[in-house]
């Protein structure tokens, strides 16, 4: 199968092709430059692989959580491509993609934390085994002092991934003590998304272009309603 994946959920801008399991990836550190860089990167990656857009079987994207604007750029691009090509979409969690990046060569449980601003973190716990990422609990957004870890086997060690771990001083002591090894710099990449999307594809998880929507996790921002509404 031929799958194009992209990620603009954080400051990086990345695109990747998964050609029957072989990953070809381009990554740029492009804060606030996604709208300038994403289309040239897609065009160039396809050109390098001598592929036409119509050769693709499916599109994948980092569906969040992450920068709201970034999520919508990725969703908009993937919707446009998938709709125009008549191909399905595979949305992939950016927390799960980060778990895979952190644990690629080193299976085990991962707790991924992104800084969600407003004194909160986006949080997801996963088990990575043989390149598969299994969520252990539902992803959520909450203040760092309300975090908790699910129970795992006694001799297993948690790995912490993502810049949200910079807030570890504010996390419960039990969480910090359980997660001694941390990869603060781990971020979602289109390559990891392309790998996870391939599994989702094989499991029949592809959806229509119109259903390709961001997952913000933060849906209750304090927008002040008018009295009585």
């Amino acid at each position, binding site marked *: 199968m031929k799958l194009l994946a992209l990620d603009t959920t954080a400051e990086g801008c990345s695109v990747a092709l998964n050609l029957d399991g072989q990953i070809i990836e381009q990554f740029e550190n492009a804060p606030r430059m996604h709208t300038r860089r994403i289309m040239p990167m897609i065009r160039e990656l396809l050109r390098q692989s001598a592929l036409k857009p119509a050769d693709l079987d499916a599109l994948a994207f980092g569906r969040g959580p992450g920068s709201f*604007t970034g999520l*919508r*750029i990725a969703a*908009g691009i993937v919707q446009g*491509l998938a709709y*125009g090509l008549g191909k399905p979409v595979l949305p992939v969690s950016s927390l799960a993609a980060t778990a895979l990046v952190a644990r690629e060569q080193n299976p085990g449980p991962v707790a991924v934390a992104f800084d969600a601003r407003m004194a909160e973190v986006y949080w997801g716990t996963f088990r990575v085994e043989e390149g598969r990422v299994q969520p252990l609990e539902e992803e959520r957004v909450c203040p760092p002092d309300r975090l908790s870890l699910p129970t795992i086997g006694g001799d297993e060690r948690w790995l912490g991934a993502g810049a949200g771990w910079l807030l570890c001083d504010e996390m419960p002591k039990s969480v910090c003590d359980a997660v001694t090894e941390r990869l603060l710099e781990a971020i979602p990449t289109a390559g990891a998304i392309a790998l996870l999307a391939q599994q989702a594809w094989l499991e029949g998880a592809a959806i229509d272009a119109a259903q390709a929507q961001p997952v913000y996790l933060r849906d209750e921002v304090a927008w002040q309603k008018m009295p009585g509404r």
Partner: protein
Amino acid sequence: MRVLGIESSCDETGVALYDSERGLLSHALFSQVAMHADYGGVVPELASRDHVRKLLPLCEEVLSRAELDLSSVDAIAYTAGPGLIGALMVGGSFAHALAFALDVPVLGVHHMEGHLLAPMLEPQPPEFPFVALLVSGGHTQLVKVDGIGRYTLLGESVDDAAGEAFDKAAKMLELGYPGGPQVAALAEQGVPGRFVFPRPMTDRPGLAFSFSGLKTFTLNTVNAAKADGSWSDQTRADIALAFETAVVETLAIKCRRALQETGCRRLVVAGGVSANRHLRKVLSEQMGKVQGEVFYARPEFCTDNGAMIAYAGCQRLQAGQRDGDRIWAVPRWPMAELPPLDALCEDGLREPSN
């Protein structure tokens, strides 16, 4: 050339299909007004979230109404600005990716040029040159229009836009959002002459507008009525009428001046406030007296819509203007900076090649 137009600059998602030979084929709109009304104004984050949900279904609707499929689309136009940056990015990203997938050209167009050209979709479109009054929630401008992309700004508001003043007056009169239609409806019950509001900046030469003083005058009138016990539904209606009349007459006076100064006999009125019936009546009477003509878009194309973007985009795409790979999202963008139709634009209208 058949152009798919996409509008997502504020709180309405609009899509349309325009054919240079056959005219407007179909259009569809999803208005978020009811959602934002709960907040008393547009919440940008909520607007962006809604655009990303509605855009694709609206495209499907437009094509199905026209009984066409995507393969019949020759080019794509989207609103590149001005507007809410997050909302603009949704339409721009979708438009660029769809154009790439279909291997057709794409162009980011100017939202106010869309409004300005919306009357061209009517059976009797205006000829160039004309004076345009662009009057909406974000803009109050008089522009001399010698052709597409040949705009001279004659005057604009130094503070609030006329539509914004309507929204603020609506709040003071305990009405909902958006204020324009609600103030106009209430004004119909008003008694003329009970209150007289100033006509800002009409006692001096020039074509600039100012509506913030009118807002203060309205607030003072409301507060005085509340203080002396005369606050009632009738008083609210009387204030609404006095406010609306002041705005309408101020706009009319400046239009007359702009036509005199430019020697134009044609006036085009575009933007959300151009749907105001009182304004249309006064301007039509005024133009009748001088044997001039006034042009409007049909009411549904006075507010934001995809049809005006498809039309404006079609004119420029036919002239060979197009974007490169950069998705444009320009929150502030003076219309007079737009290039003329014969300029070479291969990386969008913001950066002409020569």
